[in-house]
């Protein structure tokens, strides 16, 4: 049964002991970019509870297929072909339908199509590295891509990023907005990465590791990785002791 009324409850408090702290000196870029004063809290107003919604008309037919959305006609991006799928849920374990999910990544050699990426690995002329989709009524999303490569980055003298896909997810409220990275099951590089290690809790890191799902592979085509995303949960307006809509 679907609740068709607008959702107007405030969001659960964010668990800041679970999220990576702003100041994480192992990831050097955080040192001068981390606020040092405590963030200020107040109860959610409509400015926090509301958020933009995007219609399916936004999407082009190739937006969720990175193997072809930058490729010349008839050609494909180079690399291990994969499907990434999952659900966007909230902390109440309810699906979050009709939200925009955007993703970007390096190519199979670990190189980004970006002026500032000078890594030795070559660009793939058929790979741009960005895509997007919108979750369905049950919070499901999926897209097709190639598995990105690991790459070295300037932090310590020999730090490497594990293979990863960046995700930016809208919820239904502006303060549900989340940006994160998906890693791949079985990659030993995950546990050595200074960016991964900004997350204090091992369970929280495991929540970023997509599971290889052989049952969902496309035979003779692409393996599948399952990556569920959890956004902040919304309080039920059932228990509000004030007029709805504040």
């Amino acid at each position, binding site marked *: 049964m679907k609740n068709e009324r*607008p*959702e*107007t409850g405030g969001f659960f408090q964010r668990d800041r002991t*679970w*999220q*990576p702290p702003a100041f994480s000196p192992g*990831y050097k*870029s955080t*040192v*001068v*970019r*981390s*606020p040092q*004063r405590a*963030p*200020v*809290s*107040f*109860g*959610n*107003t*409509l*400015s926090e*509870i*509301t*958020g*933009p919604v995007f219609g399916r008309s936004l999407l*082009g037919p190739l937006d969720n297929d990175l193997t072809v*959305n930058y490729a010349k006609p008839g050609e494909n991006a180079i690399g291990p072909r994969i499907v990434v799928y999952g659900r966007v*849920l909230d902390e109440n*374990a309810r699906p979050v339908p009709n939200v925009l999910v955007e993703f*970007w990544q390096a190519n199979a050699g670990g190189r*980004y199509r*970006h*002026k*500032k990426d000078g890594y030795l690995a070559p660009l793939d002329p058929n790979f*741009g*590295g*960005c895509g*997007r989709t919108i979750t369905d009524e049950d919070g499901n999303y999926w897209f097709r891509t190639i598995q990105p490569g690991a790459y070295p980055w300037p932090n310590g003298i020999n730090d490497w990023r594990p293979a990863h896909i*960046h995700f*930016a997810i809208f919820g*239904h409220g*502006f303060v549900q907005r*989340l*940006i*994160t990275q998906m890693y791949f099951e079985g990659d030993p590089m995950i546990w050595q990465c200074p960016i*991964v290690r*900004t997350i204090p*809790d091992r369970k*929280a890191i495991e*929540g*970023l590791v997509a599971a290889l799902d052989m049952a969902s592979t496309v035979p003779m085509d692409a393996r599948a990785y399952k990556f569920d*995303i*959890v956004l902040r*949960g919304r309080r039920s307006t059932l228990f509000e002791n*004030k007029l*709805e*809509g*504040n």
Partner: protein
Amino acid sequence: MVQSLPRLKETASQTAGPYVHIGLTPNYCDISGVFPEDLGARMMNEKTKGERVTYKMRVIDGTGSIVRDALIEIWQADAAGLYNSPSEPRGKADPHFTGWGRQASDKETGVFTFESIKPGRVPFTNGRLQAPHVSIWIVARGINLGLQTRMYFGDEPEANAADPVLTALEHQNRVPTLIAPRTGDTYNFDIHLQGEKETVFFDV
């Protein structure tokens, strides 16, 4: 033992990284042909109601350097104080105003420019009106969890002086970090990530 609560934990955040623009503003970083235009580049059209204004924002790090590789998203009410969102219970917002904008910085100056309209007032949790404001979300390399703040309008001194969020700040000497002075039709807003002038960020 007690019954279990079937709640999930929020997915951990990770930095947007230095290449965030590939994903969120690909045309800005010369990846053309995938999306027709960068999402959030335009918030309004000629039919939008309200006073046309420009926000010029900068992000400044703890050394005083301008952060050029960040990405900023803003969210605001329309001229009548309504949000263009299904979660807005008070009425229907101006259909010609999205309320949501996304920008990368100018590659030379580091300025983030939003063409928008001045928002109306929105109630606080107790029903008191808040001063007009713009909600801001900042992500970048070196920012592990997107930063939330607000921009208030420098030409609204009375509303600002009565705003429930601004008046509740423990350190009143930090209020000016949230107020953008107006010059002509432009509001200039510098966001200091740390240091003496650190902007007030919110955990809401």
